[in-house]
């Protein structure tokens, strides 16, 4: 026997109140000299009756106080046999469906997704009236299928379970558990369950990233107590709907495509990279087919790699393509591991296709701002860059370069004119400093998704750069300028670009550096920048090696929607460098420019939940836009009011009117149709790690359960029968209150009876 509020038992001292009142009444009596004493003599029976009535009334009043105190103290018992007699209290349940593509595993008959739906339907069927169920799908973002717990177990909840869409991409189960916790935190019920229906895959559950997420969630739940201050936290159940799956089943997959130039010139060859990823198999035999599709049309069948050995389960795959038309295009690579009718080597077909959206442009507008105030154009240092990007005499240059003096540089050069003529890349060549309007124009340009290449030379005013452009890491300049290093008179101490790590897309071309390549460049002088400082916002992506030390060659920073590259040299012939004479100079200039122009192209290949952004050409209301998601029908975008059959969207104005749609939870291809019937492709890419179907080991599962208390339980009846330890106890306050009412009635009856007898 226990009490929820033991301190209330102090109220039991009030039990003496009726006794004290009785005694006080007896002490505070009147004295009357009386003659008719013999009539006060009553019989023993009457005297006993009166005494018993007095005693009973006093006991009743003491009982009233006692019951009230016990009820307020929250008297309860914890008898198991009583708990078994009690009906199961109603509960609130959140069902979380693993929405990753591994739930489409086909190696075990029905898919885990179908098994999860079946399990959930049976579970809902077995719930008692009054129970409430919410349904979530854990994709790379949490999809609330039935956001609030519903008691409609006949229609609404089964319909929500039935309506869960086909899994795809990765999943964030900790986020789903967190959302479920938040939902149940609003519940007043003590019985609350979160049931995760998953397939036991290691990735997304017990891989290092997921463990980090679990730990983060455990900290949040421990600190914030989102499950409510009262009552125990919700029970967390993990149901493996595919418990008999092979621990490492065979699976072929394609990781996302990579391209060296996100912005592709018309008619130029573009190289795409990916891998054939093979799980659960030790030997490689070429797949049945590999197909390249552009804009949904088969272009050609690719020759499968002939490698004989698997390196970490991957076979590199490269292919090229030339786009003949400008605009948005969709490149798709489709893998068929097995011939029709052959023994399946692939158990998850969803990851056998990769899509990639590219922007094909006829020419790339580039604005070169020369810091040289010399009026003679030929002597301008920026001329070499201009020649490299758009050689005179080239009738169809890939880059349309325009050179202006620093004095003539203003915001209209970046924002004026037609959209196609607006520069995508700005190159600041060895400018001494920028005025404040010029600096603001650059910031605006970056916010609009532009790319900026800043080259440093002898004219650069270090203090102005650090004060105005770097601003202790708050400006757009990637690194703080320290000093000019090197000596033109000591060519032996010249610095040269270090071997490129090739991880950076802009320098991938120089990975296998041929003779006359970038590594042959010599720089007798260069700027030293500080990327290790605490306030440094940029990252070194290329290195200059001098005989004494390493320096940053290129420092990159993402600023707002744009990209900035800071080059430690002027990229011209000043300071006696041989770079402009090397064959690598022209490719380097092109690679840097196309890389910077690709800042905006990242908007076409998205992560789940990352919004679709489409730049509008005018401020007019964007009517007539339609969007076709990966699954489902094409629907119009609704700007003003959300309504059925319309996909919600919005318009953001600065720096340029942009149509934004946040409905990108599904992985796959989104086709945005403009009013003039053009199509813009957007690809929400899936997580390639999802293709690894390796199951979590018991040890890994236990590790997760230690981080966040949970129970691995596949038996539905066990989950249904579970109760919180706190619910094993029987609350008696209501019985006590009933008794209190009964005693009160008894007291009133007895008092009235005694009054009547007077």
């Amino acid at each position, binding site marked *: 026997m226990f009490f929820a509020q033991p301190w209330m038992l102090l109220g039991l001292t009030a039990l003496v109140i009726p006794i004290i009142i009785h005694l006080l*009444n*007896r002490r*505070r*009596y*009147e*004295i*009357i*000299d*009386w*003659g*008719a*004493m*013999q*009539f*006060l*003599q*009553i019989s023993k029976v*009457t005297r006993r009756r*009166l005494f018993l*009535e*007095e005693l009973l009334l006093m006991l009743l009043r003491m009982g009233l106080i006692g019951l009230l105190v016990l009820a307020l103290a929250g008297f309860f018992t914890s008898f198991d046999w009583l708990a078994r007699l009690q009906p199961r209290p109603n509960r609130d349940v959140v069902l979380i469906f693993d929405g990753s593509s591994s739930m489409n595993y086909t190696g075990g008959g029905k898919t885990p997704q179908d098994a999860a739906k079946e399990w959930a339907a049976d579970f809902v069927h077995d719930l008692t009236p009054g129970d409430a169920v919410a349904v979530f799908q854990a994709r790379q973002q949490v999809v609330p299928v039935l956001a609030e717990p519903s008691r409609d177990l006949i229609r609404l909840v089964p319909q929500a379970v039935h309506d869960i869409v086909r899994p795809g991409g990765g999943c964030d189960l900790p986020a789903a558990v967190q959302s479920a916790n938040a939902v149940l935190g609003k519940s007043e019920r003590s019985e609350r369950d979160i049931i995760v229906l998953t397939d036991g895959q290691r990735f997304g559950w017990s891989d290092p990233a997921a463990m980090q997420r679990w730990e983060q969630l455990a900290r949040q739940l421990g600190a914030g107590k989102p499950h409510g201050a009262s009552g125990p936290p919700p029970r967390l159940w993990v149901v493996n709907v595919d418990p008999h799956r092979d621990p490492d089943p065979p699976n072929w997959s394609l990781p996302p495509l990579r391209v060296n130039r996100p912005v592709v010139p018309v008619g130029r060859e573009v190289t795409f990279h990916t891998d054939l990823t093979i799980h659960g198999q030790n030997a490689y035999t070429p797949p049945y087919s590999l197909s390249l599709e552009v804009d949904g049309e088969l272009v050609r069948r690719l020759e499968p790699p002939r490698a004989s050995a698997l390196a970490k389960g991957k076979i590199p795959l490269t292919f090229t393509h030339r786009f003949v038309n400008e605009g948005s295009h969709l490149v798709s690579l489709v893998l068929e591991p097995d011939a029709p009718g052959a023994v399946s080597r692939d158990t998850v077909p969803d990851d056998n296709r990769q899509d990639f959206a590219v922007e094909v442009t006829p020419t790339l507008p580039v604005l070169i701002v020369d810091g040289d105030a010399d009026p003679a154009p030929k002597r301008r240092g920026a001329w070499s860059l201009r020649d490299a990007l758009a050689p005179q005499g080239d009738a169809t240059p890939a880059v349309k370069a325009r050179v202006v003096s620093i004095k003539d540089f203003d915001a209209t050069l970046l924002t004026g004119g037609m959209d196609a003529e607006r520069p995508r890349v700005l190159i600041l060549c060895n400018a001494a400093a920028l005025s404040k309007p010029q600096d603001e124009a650059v910031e605006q340009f970056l916010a609009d998704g532009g790319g900026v290449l800043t080259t440093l030379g002898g004219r650069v005013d270090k203090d102005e750069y650090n004060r105005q452009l770097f601003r202790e890491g708050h400006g757009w300049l990637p690194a703080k300028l320290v000093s000019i290093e090197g000596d033109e008179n000591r060519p032996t101490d010249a610095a040269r670009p270090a071997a490129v790590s090739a991880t950076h897309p802009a320098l991938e071309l120089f990975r296998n550096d041929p003779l006359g390549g970038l590594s042959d460049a010599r720089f007798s002088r260069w700027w030293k920048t500080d990327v290790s400082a605490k306030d440094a916002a940029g990252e070194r992506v290329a290195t200059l090696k001098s005989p004494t030390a390493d320096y940053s060659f290129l420092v990159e920073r993402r600023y707002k929607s744009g990209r900035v590259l800071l080059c430690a040299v002027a990229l011209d012939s000043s300071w006696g460098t041989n770079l402009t004479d090397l064959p690598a100079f022209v490719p380097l200039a092109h690679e840097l420019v196309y890389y910077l122009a690709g800042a905006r192209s990242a908007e076409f290949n998205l992560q789940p939940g990352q919004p679709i952004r489409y730049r509008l050409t005018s401020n007019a209301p964007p009517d007539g836009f339609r969007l076709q998601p990966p699954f489902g029908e094409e629907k119009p975008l609704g700007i003003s009011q959300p309504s059925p059959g319309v996909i919600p969207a919005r318009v953001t104005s600065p720096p340029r009117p942009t149509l934004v749609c946040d409905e990108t939870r599904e992985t796959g291809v989104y086709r945005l149709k403009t009013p003039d019937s053009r199509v813009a492709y957007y690809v929400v890419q899936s997580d390639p790690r999802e293709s690894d179907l390796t199951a979590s080991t018991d040890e890994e599962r236990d590790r997760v359960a230690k981080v966040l208390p949970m129970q691995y339980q596949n038996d539905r009846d066990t989950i249904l029968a579970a109760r919180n330890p706190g619910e094993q106890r029987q609350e008696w306050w209501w019985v006590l209150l009933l008794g209190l009412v009964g005693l009160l009635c008894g007291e009133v009856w007895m008092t009235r009876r*005694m009054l009547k*007898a*007077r």
Partner: protein
Amino acid sequence: MPSTLQFDPTSLAKYGRLALVARNAVEGFLTGVHKSPYKGFSVEFAEHRQYYHGDEIRHIDWRAFGKTDRYYIKEYEEETNLKAHLLVDASGSMKYQGKHGSKFHYAQYIAASLSYLMLHQRDAVGLATHDTKIRQIIPPKANSKHLLRVLNALQETEPGGETGLAPLWHQLAGQFKRRGLVVILSDCFEEVGPLLRALRHFRFRRHEVLLFHILAPEEIDFPFKKWTQFRDLEISGNKMLVDPQRLRRDYQQNFQKFCNDLRNACGQAQVDYHLMRTDEPVDKALGIYLTKRQRRR
């Protein structure tokens, strides 16, 4: 006890023409308003009747003869004297003082009023005060100076002591040789059986007995609400702490039974029983009683 007897003779003036009529005619020799069964030639003219042979000539109304030329004999109602004995209970229980004064005071008023009235009508009045024993006894006399003696005796009496009515009444019944009117003023807080025998003793001696049962309203209604310690007025140290509200029903049952028994006993003994509440004015109570007596005449 007030210093002077609160007896207002004027309050009785209105009853001067009322007659205290005994239920049965008692013979006496003092002329009063009491009707004698014998018509004679005393003081008060009753009627004329025709003269018959043998009547004494001195009884002929010559004035009537002069007017009517016929002989009429004047007949008179012969008034008798009444010996009244006032027995006033001065036991401790009579000392109970409710809102309207003590029962003993009330008895004093009644006794004084009756004495005055009776002496005014030339009846002889005697007084006996007692508790368990006779404190003072004044033989009945009819002279006007006797009133002062009676009143002085009443005034000097202090109530106290235990009640012992029945033996004392037996004793007095033996002492009152000549039949008369015995007026008892008491609360009669004693067992009814012995009282009945004592009353019957009076009746055996052919006394007319009036019993004024004097009670305080509080004794009848028992209106007390708070816890109360009742201290016995007669026996020192006898006290009882009770919740009056709880006890009221039983008390009233006991008390009512006692009153009924006493009333019945009086009926059996042919004793005039009259309950006198101390909240009733004395003169009113006497008036009601005398009026009632007159109607029964």
